[in-house]
């Protein structure tokens, strides 16, 4: 992305931001009719956040996020079904699967930049779909992978917390989301994150300074893949099921659209984007099965009228309000 998109809020606001996230995490299940819907929002927010690391902070437009989402879902489900692994091992497996595939896709796709990179990620996304379709003995093919368990949190042999209840599962997802959110903010604030943004702004210059930009891009790809894999695994546990659509191109597109609608300038935007798209889908899909059409319209409208996404819109609104207040203060100080 060549359009400048600096973080709209300075460091002093970072605590406030965390409070906002906490408020959303606590508020979601209270406001929404079901904790399952709230969990779905957070799971997609996780995936959108990982996509945002690539798109918003490194300037990489990836149509391959569905690969990692689907791989995480399949991997965790298979580990739990065939090896009876517990919750955390399954999630770890999903992160490793997502990260490893991201390494493969990244290493190949990053050989080309710009438009070719985008096309390659899309082609690999199609490839992953056909792999899942072909390996129907493992993935269930068109029927999907059925009866995925949702294991309880255990320490040793004693059950600490059962996640069978939708609210308990939401709590677990919320804690994971918070950890990932904080982690992602740390990454962005670190020198590694600054280098990513330097690549976004001007890759030639970043590599001229001496950074091995390919190395950085692959690394952020792996990070994004691992987080997306965890999101996929959680989604499989939520649904008790891995449909083939988890790994198809539409999944990649959805994650991308959530990220863009939310706004690529901020991680909080990903939460906004995932929330609005999931809610819209939940609301409309019963009323109008072809609601994806509306998603296409929204995407076009966002590009034409609101390129900062929901977050960008909110941020400029805040700026305006604060600007006016500041103007009043200045005016008073000057005795006007």
């Amino acid at each position, binding site marked *: *992305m*060549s*359009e400048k998109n600096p973080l709209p809020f300075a460091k002093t606001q970072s605590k406030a931001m965390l409070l906002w996230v906490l408020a959303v995490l606590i508020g979601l299940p209270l406001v929404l009719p079901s904790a399952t819907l709230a969990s779905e929002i957070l799971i997609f927010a996780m995936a959108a956040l990982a996509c945002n690391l690539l798109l918003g902070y490194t300037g990489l*437009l990836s149509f391959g996020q569905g690969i990692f989402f689907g791989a995480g879902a399949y991997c965790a489900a298979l580990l739990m079904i065939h090896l009876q692994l517990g919750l955390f091992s399954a999630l770890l497996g999903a992160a490793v699967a997502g990260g490893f595939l991201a390494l493969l896709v990244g290493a*190949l796709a990053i*050989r*080309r930049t*710009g*438009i*070719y990179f*985008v*096309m*390659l990620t*899309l*082609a*690999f*996304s*199609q*490839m992953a779909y*056909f*792999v899942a379709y*072909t390996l129907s003995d493992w993935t269930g093919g068109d029927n999907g992978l059925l009866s995925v368990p949702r294991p309880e949190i255990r320490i040793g042999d004693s059950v600490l917390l059962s996640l069978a209840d939708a609210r308990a599962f939401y709590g677990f997802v919320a804690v994971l989301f918070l950890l990932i959110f904080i982690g992602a903010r740390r990454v962005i604030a670190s020198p590694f994150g600054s280098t990513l943004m330097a690549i976004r702004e001007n890759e030639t210059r970043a590599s001229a300074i001496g950074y091995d930009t390919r190395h950085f891009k692959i690394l952020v790809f792996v990070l994004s893949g691992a987080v997306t894999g965890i999101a996929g695994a959680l989604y499989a546990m939520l649904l008790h099921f891995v449909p083939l659509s988890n790994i*198809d*191109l*539409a999944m990649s*597109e959805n994650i991308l659209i959530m990220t*863009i609608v939310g706004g690529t300038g901020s991680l909080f935007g990903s939460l906004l984007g995932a929330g609005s798209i999931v809610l819209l889908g939940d609301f409309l899909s019963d009323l109008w099965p*072809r609601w*994806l*059409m509306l*998603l*296409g*319209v*929204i*995407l*076009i409208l*966002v*590009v*034409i009228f609101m*390129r900062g996404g929901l977050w960008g819109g909110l941020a400029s609104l805040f700026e305006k309000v604060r600007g006016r207040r500041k103007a009043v203060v200045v005016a008073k100080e000057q005795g006007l």
Partner: protein
Amino acid sequence: MLNLYLFQILNGLGLGMIYFLIAVGLTIIFGLLNFVNFAHGAFFLLGAYICYTAVSLTGSFWLALLLAPLVVAALAWVIERLLIQRIYHLPHMFQILVTLGIALIIQEASVMIWGPVGKSVAVPELLRGVLVLGDFVYPYYRLFLIVFSGLVGLGLWLLLERTRFGALVRAGSESTETVSLLGTNIFRLFSMTFALGVGLAGMAGVLFAPLRGAQPFVGPEILGIAFVVVVIGGMGSFSGALVGGLLVGVVQSLMTTLWPQGASLMIYGAMAVVILVRPYGLFGRA
């Protein structure tokens, strides 16, 4: 056995020529307009559906073959004027996103109009039956595919190499600013080129319809294949699209006999190999 391979190679050439038509449209648009049309697969699908409607209304495949690409091209022209022209000044990413939005709208609109189940289109009467040469048997329609798309390809080459319009497109691909400064209405050229490239995708959809029918969710698959073709052949190159298209078509056809489930998979494998060996494609420039 040898006949079987010959059969599949011919099939692959026919399929490959369809892929060529798709990819060359993508390439021409990219060359001049400098963005990738993510709605290309959706326009292909629209071509197939309009063909279905035209055939069921008029009973003539030939009329459909004439009309459907024109209708698709006209639609593309309108979309370019109304929407895409507004976003040329933005970074490429935004053109991609807008065309992705268009693709979603076309796909869902097609399901609304024609229903979620695919429609089949009969092979035109003239081309039913098979060619028998000794013990080699080959369907006429597939033969027609190779010849017809070959002729279209030739016509396109002549258009690009021998006409004023073609010269402008090629010059514009090198530098739109210079062409514009020399007094050409560059935006009209953009609209026409976009319509031409998309019309080719529509024509490919028509030609494909008697083979596999019109399927509502085939867009992403076609888009993926078109990307594989241009990644293998090199973007912005006519010969790259031709060789890439034929290669992908033949690989896919041959694999159908050897490993049916993996046929779609293999073309992506081929792409990965090309990326590793020649990152800029077989005919691409750095």
